[in-house]
């Protein structure tokens, strides 16, 4: 544990100290980059507001993420059901991914109003595609001999899906979920820029007030939220897959 925590901590401490020094000595203007100590002070001063905002953003991001996970896996299962279905619909899934979220966000406000629904929708739109893509590729790459084995004993497509294809796809499902967790936080913040609420609003308001220290404090919290979600998925993945792989065993 110590060995994995220590190396990334060293650059953090060095960069923080350097930033503090550069800002204090006037090499960098404080209204462009705040001193780390100022960010910390802003965090303490507005802690109630920030905690509230963090909770609100977390709720939006997490709800959107869970929806992405569930619908993403369901869509991947449907797409995997036949090559025809896949050919017909997969291009739209990709198209969905390439639509710039920031351009769609105003539309979401029109549809869902100024509130958490828009934030959830935005988090969902941002994070659903990696779940679909990874789950689909996992389901489609099932070991052919194992498919033969299920066929040999007369397993129905549904039984094969639940007893072979989905469990076999789990490592790739988790890969998708890890990517999508970070995207859900981004989506939630984008939603909040437009619809209001949460850390997005804090950033937006602090910016107009020239409170760069508070902007940084909110951004830091948003990153920590993404990191927390990522860690949660990693933990889940480890608990689920630990007996599968020799590599996980060794750790």
């Amino acid at each position, binding site marked *: 544990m110590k060995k994995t925590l220590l190396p990334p901590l060293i650059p953090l401490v060095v960069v923080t100290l350097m930033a503090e020094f550069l800002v204090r000595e006037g090499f960098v203007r404080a209204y462009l980059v705040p001193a780390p100590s100022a960010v910390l002070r802003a965090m303490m001063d507005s802690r109630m507001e920030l905690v509230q905002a963090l909770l609100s953003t977390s709720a939006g991001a997490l709800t959107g993420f869970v929806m992405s996970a569930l619908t993403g896996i369901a869509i991947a299962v449907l797409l995997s059901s036949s090559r025809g279905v896949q050919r017909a619909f997969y291009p739209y899934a990709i198209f969905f991914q390439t639509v710039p979220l920031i351009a769609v966000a105003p539309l979401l406000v029109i549809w869902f109003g100024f509130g958490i629904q828009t934030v959830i929708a935005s988090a969902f739109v941002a994070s659903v595609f990696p779940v679909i893509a990874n789950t689909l590729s996992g389901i489609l790459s099932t070991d052919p*001999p194992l498919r033969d084995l299920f066929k040999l*004993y007369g397993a129905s497509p549904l039984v094969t899906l639940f007893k072979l294809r989905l469990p076999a796809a789990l490592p790739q499902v988790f890969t998708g979920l890890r990517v999508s967790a970070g995207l859900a936080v981004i989506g939630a913040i984008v939603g909040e820029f437009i619809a209001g609420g949460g850390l997005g609003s804090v950033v937006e308001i602090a910016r107009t007030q020239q409170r760069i220290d508070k902007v940084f404090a909110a951004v830091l919290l948003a990153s920590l939220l993404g990191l927390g979600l990522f860690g949660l998925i990693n933990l889940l993945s480890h608990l689920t897959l630990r*007996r*599968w792989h020799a590599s996980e*065993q060794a750790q």
Partner: protein
Amino acid sequence: MLHEVGHARRVTSTISRGVAVQLEGVRRVFDHNHVVIAGMDLRIETGEFLAVLGPSGCGKSTLLRMIARLAEPDAGQIRIEPKGERFQTAFVFQDAHLLPWRNVLANAALPLELMGEAKPERDERARAVLEQVGLLEALDRYPAELSGGMRMRVSLARALVTEPRLLLLDEPFAALDEITRFHLDVRLRELWQRRGMTVIFVTHSVSEAAFLANRAVVLGKSGGAIKLDRRLELPAVRDNELRGDPRLGKEMRLLLGAIEE
């Protein structure tokens, strides 16, 4: 008299454990023009242990997949006699191909589970067959925690758990080290003798084919042409003593000669 009756019954039951396989003009083409098997005729008798030898790409695996009904011949037909129940065929692949999220017991019980057998019965049958392959102490271990040889034994147990009448093996021990392979050869032969099923064993190891089989078929490089079909003149009981036996050496030379012809 009584003894004779008992003996006769035992022989009858042994015979009924296997099936005969009849191939008539079987043809299989890949990608419209690559002929893998061009009209093969072959009969495998009930309870026979047949080794199929040949170079890579000669259609050995395709042949097995067609007999297992995992692929259809483009022409000709494959008959299994007697027709019997649906799940009388078992297949052992080149690698163990276990489900990594299931322990040894659940992996061996998988075929019965897919066939709809209740959990207590299938676990009991899986436990019995795992005992036969010497894995009783590893029931709740996971594939990642097993050696290659142990994994292959689970794979063998999974194939035998349904008490198949026809066992198809596609180079099953090729990836294992020689000592492990020797052990598994002996064990497979014992299992065959005890159960009396028909076995078709595809391999490109001449020594393994000669050691295991009662009959060996050597396929040519293309089209699945049969270059040699020979009943091996070796004792019924095969153990590691036989490995240095001149009779085994003679059979191996014959098989090798046919391959290199």
